[in-house]
């Protein structure tokens, strides 16, 4: 074995881990608070990456999809208000029908006007090349944030645990799998399932430190993702939101009695988790310039491994775990070949789940299941 490559491999492992970190933290936030494995995380990651790609490549239909997502969530919000309002049932029915009709009209307007090409033409003329970058980032973040609100409703707010039996724990998980299928197939039926490529604005920019080669976008995204996650964990430690979140995680049923507005906090956490995925997705497009409808699945399985390694619900654990998994992956590819990488990662994971389910660092208040 050629050990001279080792420093380079360690750096590569760290870079790879950087992509996983944000996805792992998104998983761990939802698990930590609501105790369910949120499979919309890979979908949102992939959607952000693909939207970023689509806007860079000037696909107007990305804007249509965003419009539809926003529309859906607005309709849900109005519907919720309508339901809570003290109105006689016939008025509510008329309101609901009106809502549906309005949504259809808006959908028809969006699909017939197709603002995409005009927006891109204006953008390229007025702002130049950077315009699409900016628009891509905004659209990806906004779409994912809005979808997170929709997902929150269907995986948390509308769920009614009636008996607290064993398979009821699975309802949010199944629901999130439904979203995963919807989002993946929306992308597939729009752009197909093949690899989609674009060009990086950074080109092949890189620099060397001694024997080690650093690629500029990779280094940037590693720093950015660590900074975001660090900021987040500080926020969770110090702010009122963080305190509320931790109290929900530890005692979901008594938190409301302590004045924690669960109904307000949960959507915020979904949006935070969604934005983490979206940022990771955007960085993925910038780094690797090639995306497809299935990138979420591959990244998410590894991120899940990282999360388990660090202990479910433990933000710092997820960071360290994801970095470690990135290292294990790169090292096992480097030492024994790509096909072998699954065994060390998943073997380690299985071992940890059985021997030490709280993860490497212990300390977690959740995941005890019943009793």
């Amino acid at each position, binding site marked *: 074995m050629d050990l001279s490559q080792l420093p380079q491999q360690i750096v590569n492992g760290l870079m790879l881990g950087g992509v996983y970190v944000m996805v792992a933290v998104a998983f761990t936030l939802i698990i930590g608070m609501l105790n369910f494995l949120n499979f919309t995380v890979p979908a949102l990651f992939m959607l952000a990456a693909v939207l970023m790609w689509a806007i860079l490549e000037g696909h107007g239909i990305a804007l249509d999809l965003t419009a539809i997502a926003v529309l859906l969530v607005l309709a849900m919000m109005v519907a919720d208000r309508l339901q809570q309002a003290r109105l006689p049932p016939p008025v509510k029915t008329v309101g609901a029908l009106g809502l549906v009709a309005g949504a259809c009209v808006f959908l028809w307007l969006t699909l017939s006007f197709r603002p995409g090409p005009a927006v891109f033409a204006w953008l390229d003329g007025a702002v130049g090349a950077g315009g699409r970058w900016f628009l891509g980032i905004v659209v990806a973040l906004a779409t994912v944030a809005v979808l997170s609100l929709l997902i929150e409703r*269907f995986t948390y707010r509308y769920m009614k645990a009636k008996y607290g039996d064993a398979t009821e724990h699975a309802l949010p998980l199944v629901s999130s*799998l439904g979203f995963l299928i919807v*989002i993946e*197939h929306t992308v597939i039926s729009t752009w197909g399932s093949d690899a989609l490529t674009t060009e990086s604005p950074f080109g092949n920019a890189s620099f060397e430190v001694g024997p080690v080669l650093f690629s500029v976008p990779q280094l940037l995204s590693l720093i950015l993702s660590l900074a975001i996650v660090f900021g987040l964990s500080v926020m969770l430690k110090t702010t009122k939101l963080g305190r509320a979140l931790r109290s929900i995680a530890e005692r979901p049923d008594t938190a409301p009695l302590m004045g924690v507005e669960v109904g307000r906090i949960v959507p915020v956490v979904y949006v935070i988790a969604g934005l983490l995925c979206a940022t990771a997705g955007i960085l993925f497009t910038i780094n690797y310039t090639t995306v497809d409808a299935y990138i979420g699945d591959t990244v998410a399985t590894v991120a899940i491994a990282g999360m388990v390694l660090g202990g479910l619900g433990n933000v710092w654990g997820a960071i360290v775990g994801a970095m470690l998994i990135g290292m294990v992956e790169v090292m096992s590819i480097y030492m024994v070949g790509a*096909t072998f990488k699954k*065994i060390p990662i998943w073997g380690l994971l299985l071992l940890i789940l*059985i021997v030490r389910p709280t993860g490497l660092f212990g300390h977690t208040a959740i995941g005890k299941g019943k009793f």
Partner: protein
Amino acid sequence: MSGYLESQLIILCLNVIYAYGIFLPAASGQLNLGAAGFITIGAYSSAWINASGAPMYIAIPASMLFCAAIAFTIAFPILRTRGVYMVLATFAFAEVVAGLIINLEFLGAAAGYPVESHADYLVVVPVTILVVLLCFFLMSTRLGLAMRSIHDDEAVATLFGVDVRLAKVAAFTLGAALMSLGGALYGHHYNYIETQTFNVLLSIYILLYVLLGGTQTAWGPLVGAAFFTVVPEALRQIATASGHAWIADSRFIFFGAIIVLMMVFRPEGLVTRTMVDRAATPFGGGRSGAAPAARTA
């Protein structure tokens, strides 16, 4: 039978067998996201035994025994985990199996592995019917009652004398044997297997069939697997016949949306025990819905 119908029937049969393999543990409250792992073990072990000279009729039961032995061994550590941990542990198990097989040269590694003996629908369909009957029988027994009690309330089941660990291990092991059977039949029908076919998506879909069909009665997995095999295929046919390609493209979007809506409006699955009870006694059943059953004593 036409080639198309036969191929669809085979897919349906395999999905039904897989679904019962996941249903047995699910009925006793365990979520198994490792279907792909057991299916892989079944498919490869049967193919390998077959290749070593044994006929298919020996290779398939042998592979089931082998898979059951593995499941029995890992059941004890895995069943110590609960809820989301069990989902993750079974998921990890399936990944380890895939990772191992892809590195085993004598099983063809990444290139896939050819299977000698062929099993046509005259083998697959009767076996599927036997599996369905077996599961119906099992769920109607006291063991089935014990499994359903564990699903609802483990602690109380224990206090009434149910050996919770035994029932759970039995359900998990038997389920693994069924999935192994399904995998073996898959291999012998298509005469070629590769690990990529049995991926995490397969595990996810099988778990979905079961949870959407309902875990309370043995009808659940049958209805779930049939519904979610037939409906997307029917939509594809409609799309081809009517020339609206968008129906075929977006059928999985509908599929996903149905899943999301079902979890809100019918979280216990398509088939519930109440439904089956009432259907079984059309005249005596359904007496004024939730009316109290108390005679004034």
